[in-house]
């Protein structure tokens, strides 16, 4: 209860701050698709995907997701998403954490779908990258094993 209240407040502030500079064209998915990020029902990848895109049906292919087979450390998992599609929205999901949506990219006019980021994973799970091209969703998934890594102090 507290948490939801707090989140609402945070988003309000965030929205206000974002509105100030000239980012009027920006789509803030945290604001418009709050439920996809934090929704009480969106705990699985499918549910979050539906909240975000209206469907969870994806076609495998045309998207390349690179991630390690075994993470060196669950706190720093490098991810690389790339695609030649002319999609406008790219999303990254994972099922190792209670909420599954990690990030949503809005591809600008000059943008190229070639994104790298480093994410946290609480345990072994599958990372999924989705590119929305028109009304079709293309995806690629990869399982990343997370163990408590490294010996010695």
């Amino acid at each position, binding site marked *: 209860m507290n948490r939801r209240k707090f989140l609402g407040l945070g988003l309000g502030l965030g929205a206000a701050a974002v509105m100030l500079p000239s980012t009027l064209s920006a789509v803030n998915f945290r604001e418009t698709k709050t439920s996809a990020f934090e929704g009480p029902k969106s705990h699985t990848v499918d549910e979050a995907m539906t909240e975000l895109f209206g469907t969870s049906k994806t076609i495998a292919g045309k998207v390349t997701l*690179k*991630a*390690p*087979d*075994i*993470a*060196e*450390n669950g*706190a*720093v*998992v*490098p991810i*690389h998403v790339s695609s030649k599609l002319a999609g406008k929205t790219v999303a990254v999901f994972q099922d190792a954490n209670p909420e599954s949506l990690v990030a949503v990219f809005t591809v600008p006019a000059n943008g190229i779908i070639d994104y*790298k980021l*480093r994410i946290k994973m609480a345990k072994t799970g599958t990372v999924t990258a989705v590119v929305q091209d028109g009304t079709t969703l293309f995806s690629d998934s990869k399982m990343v094993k997370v*163990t408590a*890594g*490294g*010996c*010695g*102090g």
Partner: protein
Amino acid sequence: MLLNIVKSTALVALASCILNAGEFNAQAEKDRIALIEYTVAKFKDAEKNRDNFFPYSTDDELKNNIKKDIKVEEFAMGNYAFSIQGQFSYNEIKDMPPYEELVEQGEELYNDNKAIQACFPDTTIAGDYPYFDQKRNEVISLTGAINECLVNAGQEKWNEKKGKMPILQAYFAAQSTEAEKKVNITIPTAEAAAAYERGKEYYYTQRGYLKLSCATCHVQGAGKRVRNESLSQFLGQTTHFPVYRLKWGKDKVANGLGTLERRMEGCIKDQGQVPPKTNSKQMKELLYFMAYMSNGMNVDGPDVRK
């Protein structure tokens, strides 16, 4: 004062190296070359050499996770030299490593400390430590030299494992790497050779309740697994310190960086033994021996590990 000592010993070391090369370091050179030959042979083709070197590894592991024909220089990367699995993460994280800001902090530490500047006018010295001081007849580690410099200048000692110490050392390492320096350990006297031998004996002697020697895991065991950890090879083990470890930096980035001594302590504890004190003779002689085994390899610190 210390600068003079360093300068003079360096000169003497250089001179005696030329004079006595092949005398005091003859055994060490033999050991070094034998270690290179062993390591190269072992990783030439893991799958083919299974009977000799990897009797307990799975087919999948040997085929898909151990690289073939590794060059000597590559062994400085630790287990990432052979572990295909680890390489993706390593390369990605190395692309913009978490320690970059710490190297800059190290530069600030250096620029703000006149005493350190006077003791270490040359910042590209990471590959020259530990060295054998002939006047004092003992091994001097970089950590020891930095603290001695601070104390001589009336300043307080730094923690030998984390904090300012590895941060300054990261700056030295980065400078040395940029200047394309190589590991350059000399054995100038009979006493130095004896220190080297003691370090060697420590490395190869079984210790602790698990009866493991350093070599059990990192010579004979290199490339094998302990649980999910690929054991790194001895060759090149000291070239890249200080190291940023993801597990050390989990809560605070500044804690992520550690000196070689910090890493050694953790490793020796895992052997089931009380580790020697960071600045003890035993530790310094062990590091002296280990660094000699990486002689001629590129200094490539700081680096990042899991």
